[in-house]
């Protein structure tokens, strides 16, 4: 058993778990944040994507103890003051989700993707960057549209702020 401490969605949390406990299970079961999902066993579907120290990672392929001391953001930590994050808002506006199961991972992936590429994202890059996220409902069409729209809007917002 390990006692671990990390920062999750801006708050410091501690918990006890087996050394073999996966980060995703620590987040879901110890912290009760069930927005992060498990959709496969082989690190391919991306339903479990969160941000660790500012980068997107698959929480099903990391032990909770590996993440001790790090700063984690989950889907629950994205909206601020009741306002959807621009990526969340774009997914809603463009119908980028159906059953919602892959959605948290898709949104966290999109936020990371936009952070790395900015508003210069194009369709081919978005599709390539989604290699690690599987959606069975949308055919990706509207997910791609939503990410491009969010990138444009966030890029625009950044420019306006500069």
């Amino acid at each position, binding site marked *: 058993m390990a006692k671990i401490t990390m920062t999750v969605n801006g708050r410091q949390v501690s918990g006890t778990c*087996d050394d*073999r*406990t996966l980060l995703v299970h620590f987040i*879901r079961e110890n912290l009760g*944040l*069930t*927005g*992060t*999902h*498990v*959709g*496969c*066993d*082989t690190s*391919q*579907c991306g*339903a479990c994507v969160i941000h660790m120290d500012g980068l997107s990672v698959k929480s099903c392929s990391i032990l909770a103890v590996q993440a001790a001391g790090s700063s984690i953001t*989950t*889907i*629950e930590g*994205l*909206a601020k003051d009741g306002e*959807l994050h621009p990526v*969340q808002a774009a*997914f*809603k*506006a463009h*119908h980028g*989700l*159906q*059953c*919602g*199961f*892959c*959605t*948290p991972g898709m*949104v966290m992936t999109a936020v990371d993707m936009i952070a790395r590429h900015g508003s210069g994202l194009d*369709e*081919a890059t*978005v*599709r*390539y960057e*989604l*290699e690690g*996220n*599987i*959606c*069975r*409902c*949308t*055919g*990706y*069409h*509207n*997910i*791609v*549209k939503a990410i491009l729209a969010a990138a444009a809007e966030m890029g625009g917002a950044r420019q306006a702020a500069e």
Partner: protein
Amino acid sequence: MGVEGIGARVARKEDKRFLTGKGRYTDDMSVPGMKYAIFVRSPHAHAKIRSIDATAAKEMPGVIDVLDGRQLTADGIGNLICGWMIHSKDGSPMKMGAWRPLADQTVRYVGDAVAVVVADSVDEARDAAEAVVVDYELLPVVTDPVKAMADGQPQLHPEAPNNLIFDWQLGDAAATDAAIAAAAHVTEVKIFNNRLSPNPMEPRAALGIYDSGDDHYTCYTTSQNPHLARLVMSAFYNVAPENKLRVIAPDVGGGFGSKIYIYPEEIVCLWASKRTGVPVKWTCDRTEAFLTDAHGRDHISTAKMAFDSSNRITALKVDTIANLGAYMSLFSSCVPTYLYATLLSGQYDIPAIHANVRTVYTNTAPVDAYRGAGRPEATYLLERTMETAARELGISPAELRRINFIRSFPHQTPVIMNYDAGDYEASLNAAMGAADWNGFADRKAEAERRGMKRGIGMSCYIEACGLAPSSAVGSLGAGVGLWESAEVRVNAVGTIEVMTGSHSHGQGHETTFAQLVADRFGVPIDSVNIVHGDTDKVQMGMGTYGSRSGAVGMSAVVKALDKVEAKAKKIAAHLMEADESDIVIENGELKVAGTDKSVPWFQMALAAYTAHNLPSGMEPGLKEGAFYDPSNFTFPAGCYICEVEVDPDTGRTEIVQFVAADDFGNIINPMIVEGQVHGGLAQGIGQALLEGVHYDPDSGQLLTASYMDYAMPRADDLPSFKVSTSNTPCPNNPLGVKGCGEAGAIGSPPALINAITDAIGNNTLTMPATPEKVWAAAHAAN
């Protein structure tokens, strides 16, 4: 239409919870004292169970109990059933072998459950499951359905000699044979429809809670039809009487058919909860899903299509062998029969059709309905045959279709269906226009200069959805009625709840069903709540599959709304001392036409509940229910065109454009309809290009048991789609709607294979068209 009414592109009400991580799926549920189940599964495809020894497993840390099939049998839990009776052409009933929720004597496919471990944690349960010692006596294995029918092969069930479940036919064999004999040209095609794994992203899960105080059971489960689950578990599996069993299907992460069925695991979780005295949760992992979720398709067919000298089809003869796996799943028998052979007329006027279908047991996972269910198999067979015929006859594929389109409605086909409305030429023209079909030759030449082989293919599909009416499906063998229910409850403050027997697992009912109410009463959709998925909250309903929620589920809502509207108008007329027939409802007000008198909606609702001033003899309250049984199927149809570029060096296929032109009748929310088409196309393209379940023929081991080996469509496998709709309203339901959930998966595979075979100049190619197969076929053609 209002901004939130019928036809409006309304953003979904349910999205916020999914986007912020607040969706509530079965695996998210947690109750005090809850323990975890792991199933011990057979590693062998066919074996007798000699003994099960759980002594060591029971001593392991955290283990509550280990239960096996003999205990389950002793407790009187029943066999899993197939709910649709099919009779062979000799009149004998289908041969249904026993399917135990936990095998007690024989295992028949890899993954068959034999015992369950309940422990404090998933890891501890898994540790103990490995320590359960099952002594198996291995039996020979057969996975190929053709081989399984031969003499001397392993027999799966004593009830089914030569593993034949039924040998069924539809249509006029003599007339069909005569027309083929007299034909100017006969096209013969061998068709293989590959086996698929549905793969909703949320794996199946179940939480069984037994309350000994009330002798009551609650089951949270990943179901497309919780009421059917309750009915079947109570009437057939003896889990609990219906009034002592509550089934809740909360947020469900996709289904595509695979979550229609009641599987062993939810039965076992409920039973184990009573046995152990603790709530028991089981969550499937992906490999378990590949092993045990019902698969789809797996047909081997030959088709003979006869033409007269003017290229009109005179007959179609089809022989199909369908692999149903080790057991008959809940609707497995109707998929290759009434959902398949009845659609073999397609969009064409074919005077004579005959289909023969044999279904077979093999040592593989059960096969049942998967998005499209029977209709993709019919469409693929027909549209590959049409394409092949066009090539043989030397006329354009569009022209051959135009010559044979049905052009007047209603149209009675020789295979039961009575098409009510359609305009097939309109969708063909729309698709060809959107795809710039006429510009293809230039694009092909340009691709040729880059060393790429470009091809184009089309598919004209028809499907039948909203399976109905109940009396008709009953006469064809269905064990249930296929109506739907709704209850509309207007609260005293005027807000509205709609209880529907339909179940949303991605389809957006919480929005589209609310749009119906908004449209009718002019109230904001935020004042309307759609309640579904809980047998304690919602009256009996039949759930969501076969694209039935619009045509059947919404029609029930419309019927209930009619009743609410009638009573609301009576109350308003009474309050305003006007004639009931003069009351109109607009923008949330009940008005007396031609005057400035009005009562706000909420005030009328309050009056219904205060009951201080109601028309004489009227009951207080405002709540109405309806059951709707359709008079016919609906028949969505359309034309899909796919254009590909094949890299001849590697065989890699790139889809350069995909056009879908569909006729779904009237549309409630175009944004959601387009989303359904996109998703269906991705699954159809997945079938044609990427996906295939493979078993080792000697051992029966599943070779595609994870995403490492089962190729799921990713974003970069697909293009952005060009979709459009035309509209011939369905005359048989009040909204004039047809279904849109499955069309994409039904129409797309033949368009893609027609395009690839066009590109490489070789018509022999099986799905999935993997790079190696395409490369080999391209080289064989040269």
